[in-house]
């Protein structure tokens, strides 16, 4: 990225890489942000945008690459370094102090002081109120931050960033929770900052926003920089094509399976404030994907179906029999397996051996007179590990020594040993390297072929398009589209996930 003739680069990162253990989060992070521009960074979930943001923020130190701010090489070791260099970041998830007041959240560490050196709360309140007037939102600076809606929290983050008068402002999906009016105001503020010479990096999944607001667009895919465009020279389909990139069919093979009778029927499932009026069916041999953006309510729906969370109304019917709400044990007995999103915290006991983890769900059937037989446990575990090709030196090694992909196989083994008729997998390949990813996919396809019904929650578009027989797209707690494999395209899923209602319902 040579831009010698271009004026004043505000920030540039070239060829930055970052790995976490065996997982490559960022292979080539490259961004060139000029002073006085709004620059979009787009890519699928898992493309490495958030890792790049954390490098800019000083949260992660890159393993390699060149990093310059205002033309000078920098290496941030802490977020304080990044702040001192004039970089201000609004994170996707607001990071507020729930016990402090709104005004204090904005000004902590740099509260206005009176002559005695004590914090001048009146002045602090006045400054906060002024910021909120600029943003046109009625938030009381004196209330504590706990209990604020996500939108209001986001606005406080924005107010904080503005008050810092940063040279570089990074906004990681700031609009995800905002209403239309609030988004318009935010854009007004962003344009104002740009005109004053700030460089703004804007990350969003909503193309209409990217095209309305940004001067240039950088595309990332699989942890790599792909291209940069002037917004005026490209179209949405071009960008989407670059984001998705590869040939879908080859990478994610879903073998055709005989689709049989209905296994699960969900009717009008609602939970106040989380999701509403969710209805769908899953049949034997079928993979149904729940697609959508992070926070759309997909995980919450499957947790409610499995009985981990409560729901307020609606019904879940499995094999023609209603399933008791809020009772995971009943769900397991009835034949549901659940592979959670966070396998480290919810799927595995990291310090236990592979064998013990794989047979956790079988404690009852393996036990005789209440005691678990070690040799039977081992035999069962070995059987499943070899069927799933878990690569481990010994069944006795702690699960924490395995790679992400193999850990996921152990979780799958654990559930398959219960012989489920319905398997729910939440983000089955998150944090797994590309090679093992396709193994997990092959496994899921295999299971469907044996007549297991599968619900797959996934934020990765290629995975959804490649694996699913049917795709349900969720947006803000509702299903906004139901697409068959033939109908589904990246654009249609993306559109439905970013709010436009598709006709298919």
């Amino acid at each position, binding site marked *: 990225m040579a831009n010698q003739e271009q004026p004043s680069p505000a920030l540039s990162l070239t060829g930055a890489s970052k790995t976490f253990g065996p997982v490559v989060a960022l292979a080539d992070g490259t961004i060139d942000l000029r002073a006085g521009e709004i620059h979009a960074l787009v890519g699928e979930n898992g493309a490495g945008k958030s890792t790049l943001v954390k490098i800019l923020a000083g949260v992660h130190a890159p393993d390699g690459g060149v990093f310059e701010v205002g033309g000078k090489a920098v290496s941030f070791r802490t977020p304080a370094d990044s702040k001192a260099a004039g970089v201000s970041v609004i994170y996707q998830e607001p990071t507020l*102090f729930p*016990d402090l007041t709104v005004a204090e959240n904005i000004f902590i560490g740099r509260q206005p002081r009176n002559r005695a050196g004590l914090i001048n709360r009146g002045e602090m309140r006045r400054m906060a109120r002024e910021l909120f007037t600029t943003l046109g939102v009625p938030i009381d600076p004196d*209330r504590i931050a706990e209990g604020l809606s996500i939108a209001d929290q986001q606005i406080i983050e924005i107010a904080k960033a503005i008050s810092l008068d940063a040279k570089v402002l990074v906004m990681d999906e700031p609009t995800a929770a905002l209403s239309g009016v609030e988004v318009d105001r935010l854009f007004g503020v962003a344009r104002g900052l740009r005109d004053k010479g700030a460089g703004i990096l804007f990350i969003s999944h909503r193309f209409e926003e990217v095209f309305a607001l940004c001067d240039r667009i950088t595309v990332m895919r699989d942890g790599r920089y792909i291209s940069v465009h002037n917004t005026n020279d490209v179209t949405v389909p071009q960008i989407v094509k670059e984001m998705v990139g590869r040939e879908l069919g080859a990478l994610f093979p879903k073998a055709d399976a005989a689709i049989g009778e209905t296994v699960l029927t969900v009717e009008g499932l609602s939970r106040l404030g989380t999701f509403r009026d969710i209805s769908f069916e899953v049949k034997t041999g079928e993979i149904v994907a729940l697609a959508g953006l992070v926070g759309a309510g997909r995980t919450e729906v499957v947790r409610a179906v499995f009985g981990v969370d409560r729901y307020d109304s609606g019904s879940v019917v499995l094999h023609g029999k209603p399933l008791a709400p809020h009772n995971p044990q009943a769900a397991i007995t009835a034949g549901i397996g659940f592979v959670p999103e966070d396998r480290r915290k919810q799927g595995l006991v990291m310090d236990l051996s592979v064998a013990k983890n794989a047979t956790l769900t079988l404690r009852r059937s393996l036990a005789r007179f209440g005691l678990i037989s070690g040799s039977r446990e081992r035999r069962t575990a070995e059987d499943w590990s070899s069927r799933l090709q878990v690569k481990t030196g010994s069944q006795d090694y702690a699960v924490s020594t395995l790679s992400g992909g193999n850990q996921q196989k152990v979780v799958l083994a654990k559930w398959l040993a219960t012989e489920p008729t319905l398997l729910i997998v939440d983000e089955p390949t998150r944090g797994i390297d590309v090679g093992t990813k396709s193994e997990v996919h092959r496994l899921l396809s295999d299971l469907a072929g044996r007549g297991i019904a599968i619900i797959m929650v996934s934020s990765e578009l290629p995975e959804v398009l490649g694996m699913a027989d049917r795709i349900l797209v969720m947006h803000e707690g509702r299903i906004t589209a139901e697409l068959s494999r033939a109908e589904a395209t990246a654009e249609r899923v993306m559109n439905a996930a970013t709010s436009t209602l598709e006709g298919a319902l």
Partner: protein
Amino acid sequence: MSIDTLRPPAHAEHSGPLHAVRGFFRAREIPVAGALVVLVIITTLINPRFLSPQSMKDLMLNATIVIILAVGQALVIITENVDLSIGSILGLVAFGTGTLFNAWPGVPIPVVFLGGMLFGAVLGAINGFLVTAAKVPALVITLGTMYIFRGILTSWAGSKQYFSGDNPKAFGNLSVDVFLGIPIITIVAIVVVIAVGIFMHSVRAGRDLYAIGSDRDAARLFGIAVGPRVLAAFIASGALTGLAGVLYTSRYNSVGALTGSGLELDVVAAVVVGGVAISGGTGTVFGAAIGAVLLSTITSSLTATRVDKFWQQAFVGMLILAAIIVDRAVSVRNARKLRVSESRDV
């Protein structure tokens, strides 16, 4: 603060002084202060001598040491840590004070105070350093140093005790003389409460402690120096415990190997009852001080009304549980409100 109003009216104007008062005494302190008033009234009705000048003076003297310890402990608990070694630190400083007077009878009293606070600060720094460097929960670290410090004191003191008669008269008089009816050492405690209270309310570093306790990861993202701040909180708590140790020597008849043992839990109880959440981020040192007064007054009032000693402890236990249940109930309610208020157009 308005926990009930989710979206308060825009730009609600607050009148200055009234608002400042409300900010000083957030909702958590008021029920504790109320309980204290009710307790005093009921006890006085049963036993009118409870409010006699001499009895009042005893109440204040009894509360003094715990107030100072509670202020120090509050600093640490607000950062979502805890210091269980303060009983042992107090013992070491108290015995050190007796030793100092014994070895150097003419030592100026200010030197004794400075030395005691410095000694406490060093012990607090050991705690703080271990907690911030080892990244092990403070509960475990300070449980360890509690035993270590006590062990050092036991081997140092052996069966030796120093009695108040061995100390200079002027030093002992600090716990006898009154100014405007208030014992001198109680005035010291009040000054400590006000000074630390202002620090926590109006100095940036004090606010950082709240931020750290409220959400440590957010504090880090913010660029707040989490480690140094937590270390400083432990040092301050140690220094205040040192001050309390010197005052203990002035107030009580004897100091020895067992001095201060078991005190740490009384102090944590006082802080929690006073509205400082054990999960950090909320509460004030004023609340902690009121909690200390409440607990020491309960003991006196149950004695004055001739209630069995067993009930005294059970009563303190019930107060702690009540404080924690109220806390939990409030946060569960808030979580539910948050979920519903976010529903928007869902």
